[in-house]
């Protein structure tokens, strides 16, 4: 990563956190549908970023979100898991001809079909872990599934919109 990239992604890190903590925290559609948009920061980091850096970034991001959500550890656990399986999952989805290591795996670079297969399972795992931990100690399994499914949809759709609005082809953010 070049210096300008590091500055760019640091700003993106802060922007994602700001939007998540001060705006999206208040937006819960129908009382069930959460938007945990911050996972898209990890999802759209360049492919060359190693798993160790991803883990630290995911841990830090999850902790900050948890502090503001008063859900200590829940976002952290889910995000660390997402950070750990992101790179193996990218590798498993290698298209013919391989990747250009320096481009970020975004919607505009990879196309909708690839991006859905890449992002949707990762978001699903993240959200199911988050809402599962939240539902521990209660017996509301039905509500847990509704919350998880509707939130996956909300997060994913808003993530797509954000990429269409704020991301450039090739250069990422």
């Amino acid at each position, binding site marked *: 990563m070049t210096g300008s990239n590091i500055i760019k992604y640091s700003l993106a890190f802060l922007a994602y956190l700001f939007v998540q903590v001060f705006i999206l925290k208040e937006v819960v559609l129908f009382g069930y549908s*959460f938007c945990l948009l911050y996972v898209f920061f990890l999802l759209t980091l360049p492919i060359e970023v190693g798993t160790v850096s991803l883990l630290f970034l995911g841990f830090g991001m999850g902790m900050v979100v948890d502090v503001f959500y008063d859900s200590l550890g829940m976002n952290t656990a889910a995000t660390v898991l997402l950070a750990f399986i992101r790179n193996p999952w990218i590798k498993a989805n290698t298209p013919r001809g391989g990747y250009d290591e320096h481009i970020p795996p975004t919607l505009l670079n990879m196309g909708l079909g690839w991006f859905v297969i890449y992002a949707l399972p990762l978001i699903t795992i993240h959200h199911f872990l988050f809402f599962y931990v939240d539902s521990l100690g209660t017996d509301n399994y039905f509500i847990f599934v509704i919350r998880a499914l509707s939130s996956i949809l909300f997060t994913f759709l808003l993530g797509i919109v954000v990429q269409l609005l704020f991301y450039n082809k090739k250069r990422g953010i």
Partner: protein
Amino acid sequence: MQRILLFLYGLRALILFILLELIAFWFIFSYNSAQGAVFFNSSNRLAGGLLERKEAVVSYFYLGSVNEALAEKNARLLKRLEDLSPRDDSVTLDIDTLFRHSYEFWSAKVINNSLHLSQNHLTLNKGAEDGIRPGMGVFNEQGVVGRVKGVSRNFSTVISALHTDLLISSKIKSSNVFGSANWDGKNPKSAKLLYVPRHVNVQIGDTIVTSGYNAIFPEGLAVGYVSEVMPGSESAYLDISLELSTDFSKLTYVYLVDNTMKEELDSLQLQLDQRYDGQ
């Protein structure tokens, strides 16, 4: 030796992953105990400061409803004052000081709130420096709100009544039957009243108030209204649903209450327990 190190280096991502997940789950389980690590929640100085600043901007949007609620509360207090103040044409005697000043009150502003998770918390803009201590009750003019979980210097974190682990000692106002109000994690507008025996006659619309037994809340604060009564599935208790009287989606200003006699009550209870255990 070098080989072992190389091997471990090859597994560094996995090892780091396991370590970070262990930390995260340790946080999850330790936070759910009675006294969580206060630094890592929204009452720490940095997060609290940011939230307060945000609240300062957002609060203008609902000043109208806040004023209305305050005016209503004032009107009710004026009426109480009128009822309690001695008339000119009558003589009053102070019988005893037993019940005098056993509760102290504070006011605070809600700067962070959640209501759609299973375990919801609030953050208030007052902390240890203002005299807030863990365990105090929190309520507003509509009814109970929660209990203080942890305090930092300037902020405090409150377990919302919308928290599946919080039990509020309550009673049915008309019949004085005791039960525990507990949120079932489903709808932020309703809760359950537990441990009411089957023989009790409960009507839909009955008012549920705090019992004053656990010494967190004074007696008689509104909790909710009975919305549904069903015979419990297998237990000896009724399955009662409540409509909560507090609108958690519009919390702005709240009051904190501290029972100044709580220590005395607790020590008395402890003495009794020891005495009966000894026999």
